[in-house]
């Protein structure tokens, strides 16, 4: 009872704070009262103290490198960035019509998407709680729009489920919940939970199951108007004479369980995928372009680093032209922020410490593949009323994602035609690009027969063949044992990037690691 009283007064207190001092103050109050979780990102970085003209060489113009460069320059450092590619962004990357992508081995792909269409081969969605990415988007003027993660009208598909006929997410979701709730209600009713649930809680449990599972007054999950409101109708409600709807049959518990389609029911419920998710308007590389507008003048492009030499007084980096023209160049600075993926760093001559070297040499990068397939019309909208969202399948493509923008447009549209890992990704990686795309079209046609008629052109990005990463994200051999050493200052260098974070493969990891690295660098420089 006293707890209840305390909660009332907390709420009253918070309301007073919120009204008087604004939402930021309320948030801070909530934090100190233990309600809200503090995010690792607490607002724009503020590096106080004069670096006295110290210089920093940033290796890599991905998000980690550009974040570091932007904030270091703001704090008074002299900054130079060396980048292997001809453009900024690293894995923050978008392919559009007119782009040519050459993967390792010299396999060329000319992207033929219609104007305005694109595919994000790397990061493609931003979680609501990636405050660093979201804040930089705001600061850099990158417009964001919602990314549809869960669409109840999208499909769950397995070749061995329901004779390979794709099922609407909505039906599997409603029926799984309904049947499981009905089963549990039976257990409660038969006193099967008497040992674990109090009588009062048992009644509440029954009430909650009735709501959650859409059970009838007998706690049964049955075909009805009520359940059709969730799983869909046999005949949709309409207007006029013939408007009365017809409820749909439910699927049996056994059919649903044996289908294994339940395996993707909560994919969108993890914190990284909970709504609201975001994507930049026009492509993920809008973030890269936003950074490049600010720090582009610091970047030397087409610079392939071949040597990193640390001394007591500074760092000298040797580089050559990425396109292979002759001639070594050097760049020097007092300090270095190195965002080069360890897959590549392990092949660069350097004099990092023994332990750091061991860690660099132990980190391969994961293989992964994405497909951007353009179709002559948005058949998924026009024929199947799927607007954004993702269908899941056990086919080698793993999933199909529908664009979260330009809904209802008449022209060609691009699907993410597949996104896979592991043994599947290795095998796609070994195929020539045009064969990969042909396979993705063949597989996708099993879910959307319109593929065959409507397919126009496609592109695939297989991350083990991306020349400037050699994989998708860093795989630690023993993160527990190695992480502290990898994150620590080594001579005059600090490592940064998604690999030096607990948000692997997320842009937030790259940004937060860069902010942390420069915070420590600055503390070292100003002797704080």
């Amino acid at each position, binding site marked *: 009872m006293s707890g209840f009283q305390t909660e009332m007064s907390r709420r009253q207190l918070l309301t007073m704070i919120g009204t008087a001092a604004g939402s930021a103050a309320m948030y801070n109050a909530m934090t100190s009262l233990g309600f809200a979780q503090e995010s690792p990102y607490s607002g724009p970085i503020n590096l106080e103290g004069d670096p006295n003209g110290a210089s920093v060489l940033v290796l890599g113009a991905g998000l980690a490198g550009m974040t570091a460069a932007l904030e270091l320059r703001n704090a008074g450092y002299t900054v130079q960035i060396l980048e292997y590619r001809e453009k900024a962004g690293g894995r923050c990357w978008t392919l559009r019509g007119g782009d040519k992508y050459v993967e390792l081995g010299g396999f060329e792909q000319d992207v*033929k998407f219609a104007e305005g269409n694109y595919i994000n081969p790397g990061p493609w969605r931003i979680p609501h709680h990636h405050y660093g990415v979201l804040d930089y988007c705001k600061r850099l003027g990158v417009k964001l729009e919602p990314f549809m993660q869960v669409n109840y009208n999208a499909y769950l598909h397995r070749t061995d489920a329901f004779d390979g006929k794709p099922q609407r997410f909505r039906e599997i979701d409603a029926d799984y919940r309904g049947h499981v709730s009905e089963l549990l209600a039976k257990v409660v009713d038969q006193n099967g939970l008497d040992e674990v649930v109090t009588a009062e809680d048992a009644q509440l449990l029954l009430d909650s199951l009735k709501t959650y599972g859409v059970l009838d007054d007998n706690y049964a999950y049955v075909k009805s108007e009520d359940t059709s409101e969730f799983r869909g109708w046999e005949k949709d409600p309409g207007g006029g004479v013939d408007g009365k709807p017809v409820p749909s049959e439910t699927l049996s518990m056994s059919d649903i369980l044996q289908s294994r389609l339940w395996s993707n029911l909560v994919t969108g419920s993890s914190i990284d995928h909970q709504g609201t998710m975001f994507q930049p308007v026009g492509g993920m590389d809008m973030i890269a372009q936003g950074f490049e507008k600010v720090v582009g003048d610091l970047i030397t492009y087409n610079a392939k680093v071949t040597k990193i030499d640390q001394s007591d007084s500074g760092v000298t980096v040797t580089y050559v032209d990425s396109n292979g023209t002759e001639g070594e160049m050097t760049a020097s600075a007092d300090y270095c922020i190195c965002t080069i993926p360890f897959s590549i760093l392990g092949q660069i001559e350097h004099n990092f410490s023994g332990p750091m070297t061991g860690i660099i040499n132990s980190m391969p990068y994961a293989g992964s593949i994405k497909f951007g397939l353009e179709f002559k019309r948005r058949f998924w909208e026009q024929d199947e009323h799927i607007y954004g969202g993702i269908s899941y399948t056990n086919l080698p493509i793993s999933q199909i994602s529908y664009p979260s923008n330009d809904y209802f447009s008449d022209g060609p549209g691009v699907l993410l035609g597949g996104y896979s890992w592991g043994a599947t990704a290795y*095998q796609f990686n*070994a195929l020539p690009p045009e064969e990969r795309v042909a396979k993705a*079209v063949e597989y996708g046609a099993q879910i959307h027969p319109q593929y065959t008629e409507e397919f126009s052109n496609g592109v695939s990005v297989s991350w083990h063949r991306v020349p400037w990463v*050699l*994989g998708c994200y860093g795989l630690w051999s023993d993160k527990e044992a190695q992480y502290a050493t990898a994150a620590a200052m080594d001579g005059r260098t600090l490592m940064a990037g998604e690999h030096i974070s607990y948000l692997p493969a997320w842009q937030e990891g790259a940004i937060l690691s860069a902010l942390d690295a420069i915070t420590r660098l600055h503390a070292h420089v100003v002797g704080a």
Partner: protein
Amino acid sequence: MKSFKFAVAAAVALMASPVIAQSDADMMFEDPGMLTQTDGEDIYNAICSGCHMPEGQGAVGAGMYPALADNPNLEYPGYAIYLILHGQKAMPALGGVLSDEQIAAVVGYIRTSFGNDYADEVSVQEVTDTR
């Protein structure tokens, strides 16, 4: 427009009939957790060639994948076996997606292809012992 349709039709036709050389295209993607090819050349073409390239020539970008062609490191199969099982630097450990038999088969293939001529047998037992 016409050439696109032709290219697409050709690619789709390629998939419809198993014309992809001797590699069992129909063994691709059989298992999301493992490779299922059994022949050394098929295994090479299903995974190794992805990085080391179809003729074992390797590739160079910001980093590089070494050539397996004319590679003296293949003289002793133990080195290749160890690398495939446990990885090294940018090369991932592949012991989780390949069986002992598959590794023995593909090492045997690499050692007798791409200008390499190490014809002594690669035993499955050596792979098992190296795990």
